[in-house]
Structure formats: structure tokens, C-alpha cells
């Protein structure tokens, strides 16, 4: 193992920049002649726009342009952003996918919907002018509730979408599943809510659009999770060829899926930059832009049945979900509750028969799309709640019920009822490691100690499996620079994960170059022909693989040059990864890779089109990976106040081969806390009028450091068989695992009161009300 290679907890090199305040984020970019954009948003959840009068605003001091939807339509452009997901209903008909409108022309459909874009010499001039825009709204009735939206009599969000039903999708074997459930010895039935969340990265969204009139080209600087994905939508919106669009991404302060999408504001800024021939900047403010326009996450209502035979083995699973899409269908939105959730709906169990139906409903709320885990947290939360409830109903230990139904290590590779092929995993081993690490058997005495303090203790388990996903190809290019450094060009986009460290470790491992001589070059859509971006926990698997393959090409080329250098046969050259040098076999003649690369520039290339030792490669991922793990939570509930405190949290994960244990622990910590946020604190609440009640951090509760215990995080390395590095990916795992662990623990703590279900977030109010309903709280001494 080299000092900076795979398996080492190397400190994040990017942190020097981030924690000393020298990161460069989109809002730090200021271009000469830059103007400032401000979005006038709808205060109404649903209204007809009778008229918009922008004349006073246009005449206001410092104002350069006031753009409305009419201007965009008149400019010949489509006024919408795309959805990339083909959707078909269960009856074979096409889904109805009303696309996100850039600037509303005749109707607004959620609070915060975009009405006008005001561009001025300063932001405050733009805001002043926005107050002069006269909009006449005729209020319309509002559909805001996920479960109610498709009911008769509900107002229609889009007139062309009856019953607000965008799609009615189904996967699986319905007759077989129904039959299995009918014949089951026991059926567990559960209805639950997967609460709506707001992503809230530290860095709000932002862009600077720059138009080059001479070349008729547009550069968009923005916080993305991979700018390649935006090129086509921007080109389509602008009516420009894709070669004329370049997306540049500087440092990004958190994305969580929410920043993967192209947004209306970015389209407006691009439009205004071309119209004004000046750079136009737009930066979201937290409550007045981010809370209203950033895509939100989750928001499902689900009813499910899980059937067992007399041996407590699962015979069938039937699931029906209402997924709130918000007011428009966003980029990936329909895929999240359907295909993405489906991948892991059966979890780690041998579910023989499965049917999954999803109704995507439209409401007068902000659009919903991918949010860390994207469908998989929803699926695992369901399955793991079902397993705990079934264990209670069957009078069986929850660990035993799981063990009995696990897909065994011997059964790998295993084709699931959801159509996935799990390549590897040893769920029993991972669970046993977690049980031991947690002191699971010492629970009774801890519970007694809590009771003496008037507190109820409960414990909960969640065994999750994740299916990483995304673009199945990724490219990397290795460049030996004149200054002796090595550049690695990638098409993924770190937004906090630590790619600038992990990728270098992969390269150091393959080529033995000095760690501090390598620079990861990301964030330029023009630098590679394609790039899949970061999301779906794919980056290290995909880009790491490409870096690995490109390294092999470097070595091949290096052998060619070394052979010339030493006047030997290429077959006699060997490469030492540890030393990073090419040697003539059986001699002491050798040359370092960087020295050789410098010389290679002036040497004849092995083939046409090859420049020195620079190389590139594309990884093709035909099978994704299945990170999995067992998370255990122990909570204490104060029955007098309803406050839940997480006292212990243990995560044992199988991420396959771990490149940097510290980065992995960081991802697990963050993911677990995000899931704890969902389980206990976070909730985007709309009232019946479609107003966002939790409209700022005063009411939208993010988890904070004092809300989480010190976690115990371990890994069990079972190499993935679907990629040469054995990596499984860890980015989303924590957020997939922790909600069920926490809620199961809460239900356990309240079970003797007869509580069998608790919805998220389990706020003090909700817990207190549940206890009140049971009217038999144990009194504090």
C-alpha cells in the first residue's frame, strides 16, 4: 500500500481552501459589466394572471430589462424546462407530464412560481423595480395535499391533467402477488407518510450567464452537480446549437440532488445576458428564493402489504404510493418514486412476488425531484418499517425475522423481484457485526436505567440496500502538464464529497505519482465530450474506474517511450506502481513517470493522435453496485414533553473496497444526520391555501450537531463484483438507512402503550399527542 494510495485516510486536500475561506463559489464570480437579476415570484399558490404591467418597472432607475413569459414566448423559445424520464401508465397510455414553466404567462401554480425577471445595474435597483410590476391575480382554488389531490372535486393544477394524475405506473406481477397475499399465513399492512423535505445546501443556488455576441456563444457559470447535463436544455431553451453552450462549475457548497437540475432562473439569466449583451448574475436568497423554487424531496403517502408464510418467510409484497410531484414535472421527478425506488423496494429480502403501483399527482406546491437517496430512502423506510411491524405482530425478534428472510451470501448473484441483480453481500455477517458493536444484548439494563430517570428507551434497526445509479459511462483524461504536475480531467462534479482527494488516491495507487503533484480538473462541460455528473452515489465507481483505465493506457504508452529511452524492447519494460517508474527488466536502469512524461513530449508517439503520455479512457458500467448495511438507533423519549433524543447510533456498512475510510465516515455521518433530520425535525408544511408554513429556518428545522450522538461507524468490506476496483459507493447510504432505524426505535419505545406507527417527523408535539391518545404515560418520578 503506498502512503497516499487506496485505503488510506488522507485528509481532504480541498478543505484547506474551503475552511480558510478561499473557496471560489458561483456568487464569488463577478464579471466586468455584470448586471443583476431578481425574480418576481407569485405570492399565490394558484391564480390566473389577468394582466402584468411592467411599464413602471422598466422606467425605474437602473433597470435594464423586465422579462416576462410573454417575451420568451414571443422570442420563439419554448418556455419550459425538460423532463428526461419517459413515462407510461399501467394501462399503456402515455403519462401527462406538464413541464416546469420558466416564466408564467397566464397562470401561476405554486407560491414562488416565476412571474417576471428584472435585471438592473444593482440588486437593490432590481428589487425596487420589482415592487413596481403590477400583476393582477385572479385566485383559483388550491390542491395542496398529496393524498387528496386525485379526489373528485379537487381543483385541477393543469386543466389538461384530469384528477391531477400525471401518471399511474405499475411494475410487477399483480395476480401472482395478490394470490400470494391471499394465501399468506400473515399479512402486515401499513400506511405511512414520507415527509416532504427542503434540501438546503449551505450554498444557495446561483449563476452568472455570459454571452459572447461575436461568437454567438453562451457561458453559464453555475453551481451544478455536473454541467454536461445542462448543455442540451440550455441550448434548447436558447435556440442555440449545443456547441455554443458551455457550463462552468466552480466550487459547490452542497447539492444533495437538488443542484443537479437546470432551473428557470438560470434560463432567465441566460436569456437576459443575450438580450442585454452583458453578464447577468442571479443568486438565490434562502427563504424568498430557495425555499420556494429549489426542488424539494420525498412527499409520498404509501400503503403496503407484506405477506408471510407459516415459517415467517415473505411470500409477497404489494405497494401503492401517491407521490406528490408538485406543480410541474421536473427533470428526473417521475423516476424517483417509480424506477429509483423500485430498485431496492424488496430490500435485502427474498421477496418472491412484488407489485408496485405509483400515482404521480400534481399539486399547487413547489416541484419535487431527486434528493439524497432519491427514491431509495423511501423504499427502504417502507420495507424496514414493515419488517419491524411484522416482527411485532408475529411475536418474533426483529433481527431473527430479518435473518430468516435475508438473501444469503451463498445465493449471490441474486435476481430480485424488482429486476435487479445483487452481485455480492453478506447481510447476516453485517447485521451480526452491528449487533455486537451496539451491545444489543445490553439493552435491557440501559432501558431500566432510562426508566429510572422517567424516560422511555427504544431501539430500532434498519437494514438498507442501495442501488447506485446514473449515466452508465464516464470518461477521464490524464494530462502530464509542462510544470510537472498531472491533471485528471473528469466529468463528475464534487459538491463537497472530497473527489479532489479520493480520485488522486486512485491515480497515486495506479501510477505512483506524488500525491501533491496531481490536480483534479472538473467543472467544465467543454473539457470532455460527456460527463455524467455526481449523483446516485456513482462518482467514485464511475470516474474512479475511468481514471484507473486511463492509467493503464498511460502505462502502455510509458512502456513505448521508456523502450526508446533505454533502447530496449517494450516487452522488456516493466512499470512499478509503488515507485512510479519504468524499468528495464533485470537491470538497474529506470526512469520516473514524470520525467519520462516530460521527455515523451519530444519523442515520436506510438500512434497517430497521441500526445506524449497523456491518455484517456471511458468506463462502461453495465451493472451498478449495491452498498448495504445495518444501522441501529437507540432513543430516549421524555414522555412528559414528547422529546426524542438519539442516545446511540451504530452504522455498519458494506461499501465494498474503501478508498478513503475518513471520507467514507464523513459521508456516513452526513447521510445519517440528514436521515435523522427527516425522521425527527424536517418538514416542508403547506397549509390548505398552498402557503408554505415552514417558510424559513425559523420553522423549518435542520438537524444540528447537538441533535446527534457520537456515532459508531464501521465497514465490512465485501468487494463489489461489478467493477474492477470492488467499490460500491457510499454517498447516499446514511440517508437511506437512518430514518427507519430512528422511527423503529421510537415505535419500540412506545410499543407498550399500543403505538404501532409513528409518522415522520416525530416531533415532540406528535409524540406527545400519541402518548395523550393512549392516555397512560408512565409518570416521571
Amino acid at each position, binding site marked *: 500500500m503506498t502512503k497516499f494510495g487506496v485505503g488510506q485516510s488522507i485528509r481532504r486536500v480541498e478543505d484547506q481552501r474551503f475552511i480558510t475561506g478561499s473557496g471560489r463559489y458561483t456568487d464569488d464570480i463577478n464579471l466586468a459589466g455584470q448586471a443583476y437579476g431578481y425574480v418576481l415570484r407569485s405570492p399565490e399558490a394558484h391564480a390566473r394572471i389577468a394582466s402584468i404591467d411592467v411599464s413602471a418597472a422598466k422606467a425605474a432607475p437602473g433597470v435594464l430589462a423586465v422579462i416576462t413569459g410573454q417575451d420568451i414566448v414571443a422570442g420563439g423559445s419554448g418556455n419550459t424546462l425538460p423532463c428526461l424520464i419517459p413515462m407510461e401508465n399501467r394501462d399503456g397510455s402515455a403519462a401527462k407530464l406538464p413541464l416546469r414553466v420558466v416564466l408564467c404567462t397566464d397562470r401561476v401554480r405554486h407560491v414562488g412560481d416565476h412571474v417576471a425577471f428584472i435585471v438592473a445595474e444593482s440588486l437593490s435597483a432590481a428589487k425596487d423595480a420589482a415592487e413596481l410590476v403590477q400583476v393582477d391575480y385572479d385566485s383559483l382554488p388550491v390542491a395542496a395535499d398529496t393524498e387528496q389531490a386525485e379526489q373528485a372535486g379537487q381543483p385541477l393544477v393543469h386543466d389538461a391533467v384530469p384528477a391531477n394524475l400525471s401518471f399511474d405506473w405499475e411494475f410487477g406481477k399483480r395476480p401472482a402477488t395478490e394470490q400470494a397475499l391471499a394465501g399468506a399465513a400473515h399479512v402486515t399492512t401499513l400506511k405511512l407518510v414520507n415527509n416532504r423535505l427542503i434540501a438546503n445546501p449551505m450554498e444557495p443556488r446561483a449563476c452568472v450567464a455570459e454571452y459572447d455576441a461575436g461568437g454567438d456563444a453562451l457561458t453559464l457559470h453555475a453551481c451544478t452537480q455536473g454541467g454536461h447535463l445542462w448543455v442540451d436544455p440550455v441550448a434548447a431553451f436558447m435556440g442555440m446549437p449545443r456547441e455554443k453552450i458551455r457550463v462552468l462549475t466552480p466550487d459547490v457548497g452542497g447539492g444533495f440532488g437538488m443542484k443537479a437540475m437546470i432551473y428557470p432562473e438560470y434560463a432567465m439569466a441566460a436569456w437576459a445576458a443575450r438580450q442585454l449583451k452583458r453578464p447577468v448574475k442571479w443568486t438565490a436568497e434562502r427563504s424568498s428564493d430557495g425555499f420556494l423554487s429549489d426542488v424539494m424531496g420525498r412527499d409520498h403517502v404509501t400503503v403496503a402489504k407484506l405477506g408471510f408464510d407459516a415459517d415467517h418467510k415473505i411470500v409477497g409484497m404489494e405497494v401503492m404510493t401517491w407521490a406528490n410531484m408538485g406543480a410541474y414535472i421536473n427533470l428526473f421527478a417521475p423516476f424517483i418514486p417509480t424506477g429509483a425506488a423500485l430498485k431496492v423496494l424488496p430490500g435485502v429480502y427474498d421477496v418472491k412476488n412484488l407489485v408496485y403501483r405509483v400515482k404521480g399527482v400534481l399539486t399547487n406546491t413547489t416541484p419535487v425531484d431527486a434528493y439524497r437517496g432519491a427514491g431509495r430512502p423511501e423504499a427502504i423506510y417502507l420495507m424496514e418499517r414493515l419488517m419491524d411491524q411484522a416482527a411485532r405482530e408475529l411475536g418474533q425478534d426483529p433481527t431473527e425475522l430479518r435473518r430468516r428472510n435475508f438473501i444469503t451470501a451463498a445465493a449471490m448473484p441474486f435476481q430480485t423481484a424488482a429486476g435487479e441483480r445483487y452481485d455480492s453481500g453478506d447481510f447476516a455477517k453485517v447485521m451480526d457485526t452491528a449487533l455486537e458493536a451496539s451491545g444489543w444484548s445490553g439493552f435491557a439494563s440501559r432501558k431500566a436505567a432510562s426508566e429510572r430517570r422517567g424516560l422511555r428507551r427504544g431501539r430500532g434497526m434498519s437494514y438498507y440496500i442501495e442501488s447506485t445509479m446514473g449515466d452508465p459511462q464516464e470518461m477521464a483524461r490524464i494530462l502530464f502538464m509542462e510544470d510537472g504536475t498531472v491533471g485528471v480531467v473528469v466529468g463528475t462534479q464534487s459538491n463537497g464529497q472530497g473527489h479532489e482527494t479520493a480520485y488522486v488516491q486512485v491515480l497515486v495507487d495506479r501510477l505512483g505519482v506524488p500525491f501533491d503533484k496531481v490536480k483534479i480538473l472538473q467543472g467544465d462541460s467543454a473539457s470532455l465530450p460527456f460527463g455524467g455528473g455526481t449523483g446516485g452515489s456513482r462518482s467514485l465507481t464511475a470516474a474512479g474506474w475511468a481514471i484507473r483505465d486511463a492509467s493503464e493506457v498511460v502505462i502502455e504508452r510509458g512502456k513505448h517511450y521508456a523502450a526508446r529511452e533505454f533502447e530496449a524492447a517494450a516487452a522488456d519494460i516493466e512499470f512499478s506502481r509503488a515507485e512510479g517508474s519504468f524499468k528495464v527488466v533485470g537491470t538497474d536502469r529506470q526512469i520516473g513517470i514524470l520525467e519520462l512524461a516530460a521527455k515523451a513530449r519530444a519523442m515520436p508517439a506510438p500512434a497517430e493522435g497521441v500526445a506524449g503520455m497523456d491518455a484517456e479512457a471511458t468506463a462502461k458500467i453495465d451493472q451498478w453496485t449495491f452498498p448495504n448495511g445495518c444501522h441501529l438507533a437507540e432513543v430516549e423519549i421524555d414522555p412528559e*414533553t*414528547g422529546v426524542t433524543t438519539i442516545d446511540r447510533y451504530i452504522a455498519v456498512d458494506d461499501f465494498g473496497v474503501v478508498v478513503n475510510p475518513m471520507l467514507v465516515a464523513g459521508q456516513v455521518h452526513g447521510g445519517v444526520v440528514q436521515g435523522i433530520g427527516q425522521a425527527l*425535525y424536517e418538514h416542508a408544511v403547506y397549509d390548505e391555501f398552498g402557503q408554505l408554513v415552514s417558510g424559513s429556518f425559523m*420553522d423549518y428545522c435542520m438537524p444540528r450537531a447537538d441533535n446527534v450522538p457520537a456515532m459508531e461507524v464501521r465497514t465490512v468490506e465485501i468487494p463489489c463484483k461489478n467493477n474492477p476496483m470492488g467499490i460500491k459507493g457510499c454517498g447516499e447510504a446514511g440517508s437511506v438507512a437512518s430514518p427507519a432505524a430512528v422511527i423503529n426505535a421510537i415505535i419500540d419505545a412506545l410499543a407498550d402503550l399500543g403505538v404501532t406507527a409513528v409518522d415522520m417527523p416525530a*416531533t415532540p408535539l406528535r409524540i*406527545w399527542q400519541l402518548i395523550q391518545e393512549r392516555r397512560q404515560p408512565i409518570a416521571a418520578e
Partner: protein
Amino acid sequence: MYAFEFHRPSSVADAIAALKAASDGKLMAGGQTLIPTLKQRLAQPSDVIDLGGIKELHGIRQDGNSLVIGAMAKHGEVAGSDLVKSVIPGLHELAGLIGDPQVRNRGTIGGSLANSDPAADYPAAVLALNATIKTDRRSIAADDYFTGLFQTALADDELITAISFPRPEACGYAKFRNPASRYAIVGVMVARTGGGVRVAVTGAGPCAFRLPDFERALAGSFSADALAGLSVSPSGLNSDMHASAEYRAHLVRVMAQRAVKAVR
């Protein structure tokens, strides 16, 4: 934020003069409430008068049997003051529970009391400890000060200079925090004073209020158990996504009991 004239006077008299001269002037202490209000364009004062440069408004001192805290004393100063800790430990503890370190390093006791947010902590202490609000022109007794939601007995152009807290025999504070904002959903201070037991509640109603029946019960027996059978009517209490009126009413009793247990 709209444009305004900015003043930084160095005396109370100059501040009052600037306030009177302005068509719609606003005093600024730490700006913790004022600045967000301005940034969201919810207020458009003609003039902002920064109190930060007025020496007489700063500082914490003992005056006989009272603790006098200048209006511009920051929460962090009160929470970090050995004097406060030794004279009124319950008040010291309360200040340390306000917001987060950033808020405590800017927010002031004068700003908090002038603003009279229904969820602020200090009002419970002012009322329970029978403090006196000193202004540029008069002294206002705690019982006369809080008049309604964001309403106080202060005149529009009146300036708080200091708050005088008589030293209680003992007092204790218990706070149930709003998980998001960390303001008080319910905060209760219980104090044994020369004038009897006083129990004051913040967070639950439109403004801080006292609980006479709790005070009577504690006068009989100063123990948490003495409150066990008491309840508070939810009618008129605040209700929001974090806490219904019923839940708040319940929490008032629970927090009062915990405050009694915390008494020092």
C-alpha cells in the same frame, strides 16, 4: 433593504433628538431583529439610529441589592458575567439559553425587551424577578410593561437605558425550545422574592404573563409536587406547527415544575 439615514450618537440625549427629528426613525441595538426585517423589506425607516456608541447603555453593575444591566448588554455578556452568576444565577443561565452563540454575541437585553417577541426569554425573567425597566424618561414596573403581542408600555420615541433586577432569594428557569428557531415555545421562570413567589411564562401567550394559582401553590409549598395537580387553560395560547395551544398549556405546567427543580 431600502435606503435610510444612519446615525451613531454617543449619548442618550442625542439618540432621542435624532429619533424625534426623523420622520420614521428606528433605534438599532444589535440588529438581530431589525436587520432581518430591513433585509426582507418589511420595514422602511427613514433613519436608523445605532445605539452601539452610547457608553452609558453598556455594562452590568450591582447597585445595592439590585443588578443593573445596561440596555446594550449582549446576551453573551450576561451569560458570561461572574457578577450575574453570583447575584442571580437563574438569570445567568437564561441568557445562555438564548438562540445560538452568534445571536448571543449581537442581541441585547434592551432590544429583546423593546421588541417583546412572544417567544423571547428575558420577558419571563423580567416578570418573575419583578424587574424595573428604566428608560430615558421614567421607570416602568415589570407588571405594567408587557401589554400584548409585540406590544409594550414604551412610547414610540422612548429608549430603554437599563433593566434593574432586584436580587431574589432564589430563582430557576426552564425552557422548551422551538427545535428550529430555538426561541422559547414555553419558558417558565419561578422566583422566590421578598414580595413572595412569582411565576412568569413566556412563549405560550401573546406576551409574557404570570400564573397566580401556580404562585399560590408554591407559596404554600415550594416544590414541584405542589404544581402537579394544576393546569393551564389552552384558550388564548399560541398555536403553530410546532405546538398546539393544548400542548403549550401542558408544557407550561411541566416547565414550571422543572423550573422549581432548577431553582438556585
